[in-house]
């Protein structure tokens, strides 16, 4: 047998075994066997092993020389099933690794401790960031971190710390890219419907009041009312706007916010949204006469115009129109509400809000603006002053938790959507950060044991985070590449921002202007703009847009859903948006409890 020999003492751990011991017979040739340990990663065995050489010691030197080997065999180790501490050290000492291990343990605890049984949520809070798509959450997270002096990317908004999350498919029954009316109806009632429709199923013809008769949906808030829980609605938009309205109203057209918005033919047969809010108790009682319903405890938002007569005599202190009210039926719904709830408090500014007695107050009706409330960054410019979303959330919870049977609260950050429509990321992100603060208030004031908190969006916007900016680059700034200090230049030799819009009004440079809508003075900007000398991080900067439209549009991709509390484990995977209602119902037994009330 011809052996191609190599040096046998290659392996330091080589073992030489004499199969035959010393012999008196000098002519006898000993057979020898040598075992070499093969290292992990060796050519013969990737996981290491043993190489066995056998042969005869023909030169009688007591060693198996290369030319004496007659046979070679290799026994490879099985694949490694574990690594030792030394091998793992590069991982286990790494901060990313350690943080993920900690998170893993926390996640395991979350799964182990989650209350899976239905009906265990005494309280339910649904937060909705209007237009808060995934890119908005990401950018707001980075901005929030950077405002705290961090690089930003590693930061977490309050609701990103919630233990369970999933995705919601937002399309409306008749629309690929949805609007708030159809999406919030899905979340509030568990049934998807058409774009522009509030609280009625898809059988309705948009704008045709009578077509919706018999197709009205019952909402989670209404179920909670029937069940005897306290209920609340908060929004920074008009309280009659699509998202908050979907919790209490039925309307074949989202714009029927007061009677002056309705064609006479429709007003003759259907009630406007503002009126439905004030008449909520009577309307729900009419549907379920056997149940003692006490009305919505907390209503706070904007939209005073829809509750006041079109008469300057009814103007509030911070009216912005010469005639604040829009109602053409002469009704003052704020007075009607006060007459229904004589012990309730109607508030319209910061001072009256601050004076609310949260222990003894049963009902609060807060209308802080003629139309939408201010952007958080613009709030200081309000004439009479108005509370922030987090302040309203805190006050609402302090009132609602006075009910031993629990509560149901919906909180909407309504102006994220408006800032995006105006192509102004600054306000969209800052209002998202304020939503994060409001969620933190709820997390601090409630228990994971008995309160289901869900945070989500109704739909997304065509808002993008693009380019290759380096870590920690200001999220509202121009793209500066890794290792660079000056902005990257595009093919047109001009810098560009990290965040931007696929469509909309495009570039505006309004400096310190905090009102996102101040950009209206300009037609849509087509084409690129040289941003070299522009401070893109200023409140009044409006990002560039590809397709010129006067108003930036919604986007059709999924939105995130984040949850904590009993039943939160059901928020996982990709689901229809209507699934959110069913999670809330499972957690709080809303239908079951309401059924029992109606039956009794």
């Amino acid at each position, binding site marked *: 047998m011809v052996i191609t020999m190599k040096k046998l003492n290659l392996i330091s751990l080589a073992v030489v075994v004499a199969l035959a011991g010393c012999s008196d017979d000098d002519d006898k040739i000993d057979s020898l066997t040598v075992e070499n340990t093969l290292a992990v990663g060796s050519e013969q065995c990737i996981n290491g092993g043993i190489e066995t050489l056998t042969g005869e010691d023909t030169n009688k030197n007591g060693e198996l020389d290369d030319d004496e080997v007659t046979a070679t065999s290799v026994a490879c180790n099985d694949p490694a099933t574990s690594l030792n501490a030394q091998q793992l050290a590069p991982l286990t000492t790494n901060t990313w690794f350690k943080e993920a291990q900690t998170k893993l343990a926390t996640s395991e605890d979350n799964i182990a401790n989650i209350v899976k049984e239905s009906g265990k949520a005494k309280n339910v809070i649904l937060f909705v960031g209007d237009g808060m798509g995934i890119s908005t959450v990401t950018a707001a997270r980075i901005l929030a971190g950077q405002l705290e002096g961090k690089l930003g990317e590693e930061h977490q908004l309050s609701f990103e710390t919630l233990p369970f999350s999933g995705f919601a498919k937002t399309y409306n029954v008749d629309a690929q890219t949805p*609007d*708030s009316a159809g999406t919030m109806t899905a979340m509030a009632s568990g049934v998807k419907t058409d*774009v*522009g429709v509030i609280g009625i199923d898809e059988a309705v013809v*948009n704008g045709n009041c009578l077509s919706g008769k018999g197709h009205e949906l019952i909402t989670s808030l209404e179920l909670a009312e029937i069940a005897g829980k306290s209920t609340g609605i908060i929004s920074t938009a008009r309280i009659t*706007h*699509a998202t908050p309205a979907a919790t209490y109203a039925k309307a074949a057209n*989202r*714009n029927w916010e007061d009677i002056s*918005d309705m064609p006479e033919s429709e007003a003759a047969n259907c009630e406007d949204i503002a009126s439905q809010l004030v008449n909520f108790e009577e309307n729900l009682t009419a549907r379920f006469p056997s149940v003692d319903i006490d009305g919505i405890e907390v209503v706070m938002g904007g939209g005073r115009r829809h509750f006041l007569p079109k008469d300057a005599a009814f103007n509030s202190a*911070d009216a*912005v*129109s*010469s*005639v604040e009210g829009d109602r053409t039926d002469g009704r003052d719904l704020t007075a009607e509400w006060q007459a229904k709830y004589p012990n309730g408090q109607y508030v319209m500014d910061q001072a009256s809000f601050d004076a609310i007695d949260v222990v003894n107050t049963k009902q609060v009706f807060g209308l802080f603006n003629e*139309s*939408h409330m*201010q952007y958080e960054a*613009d709030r200081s*410019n309000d*004439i009479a002053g108005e509370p922030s979303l987090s302040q309203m959330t805190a006050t609402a919870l302090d009132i609602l938790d006075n009910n031993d049977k629990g509560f149901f609260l919906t909180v909407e950050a309504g*102006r994220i*959507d*408006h800032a995006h*429509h*105006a192509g102004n990321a600054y306000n969209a992100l800052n209002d998202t950060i304020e939503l994060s603060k409001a969620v933190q208030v709820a997390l601090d004031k409630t228990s994971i044991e008995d309160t289901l908190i869900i945070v989500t969006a109704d739909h997304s916007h065509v808002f993008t985070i693009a380019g290759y900016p380096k870590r920690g680059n200001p999220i509202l700034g121009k793209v500066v590449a890794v290792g660079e200090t000056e902005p990257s230049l595009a093919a047109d030799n001009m810098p560009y921002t990290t965040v931007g819009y696929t469509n909309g009004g495009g570039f505006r440079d309004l400096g310190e*202007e*905090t*009102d996102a*809508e*101040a950009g*209206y*003075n*300009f*037609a*849509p900007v087509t084409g690129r703009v040289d941003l070299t000398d522009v401070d893109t991080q200023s409140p009044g900067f409006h990002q560039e847009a590809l397709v*010129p*439209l*006067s*108003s*930036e*549009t*919604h986007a059709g991709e999924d939105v995130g859903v984040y949850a904590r509390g009993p039943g939160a484990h059901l928020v996982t995977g990709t689901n229809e948006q209507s699934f959110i209602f069913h999670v809330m119902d499972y957690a709080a037994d809303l239908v079951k409890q309401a059924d029992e009330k109606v039956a009794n």
Partner: protein
Amino acid sequence: MKKLIASLLLISPLASASQCALESQYVQANYQVNSEQTTNNTLAQAQQFTLWRTPHQVAEQGSELVEVWQQLSNQQIRPIRYFQAHQRGIEYQPSEVQGEQDWSTKYQLVSDDFIAKMTLKSEQGEGCEQLQNYQLVQGDTKIELAWLVNKKLLSSMRISKPQLTQTLTLDKVKFDKAAVMQQFANWDSFQTTDYADIGDNEGDPFLAKMINLGFIEHGASGFYDAGGKALGGGHSH
């Protein structure tokens, strides 16, 4: 100018400055805007607009578009844009008063700050008829302004550039409070939409048109052409 003088007779010419200002709070002023090429004297543009105002509301009414500004108690300005053919309006959030948001710019078409920068060349009349003539030369642009100081009303403005001359001339003015209030009430009856809500109302044909085609861009102090493009060189900010 004869028309102007005749209209001014509606207010006593002997009125004191303060009385004159009080009596001219409610204004309907028709202006003629001309733009001509200096080189060949051809009339390139000719259009009209009406300035309406009350103490805290101003409107510039063109043939299609009406721009309304309302002054709030905290001095913010709240804009509204009416589309007369559609009897619809777009309402905006009040903006902070800064730069071109100066109320005097809206109220009298030319800001107090700009007048202060000009040189008073001559003065004539008294009371409500007191007329001041100002001039300012900036590079190759000469701006001449005739200012009814006690009415806070622009009588005329002429902007001369090497290639182009633009003039703004007060054609007719009335101080009829009832008529002015009726006009504002008429616009107020139009169906309005918050600017913030346009993006959520693509199903509304009027608003969809706004979204897809854009708004007609308004020009400063009525100096805009039929396409909505500012003629430029109007009052300074």
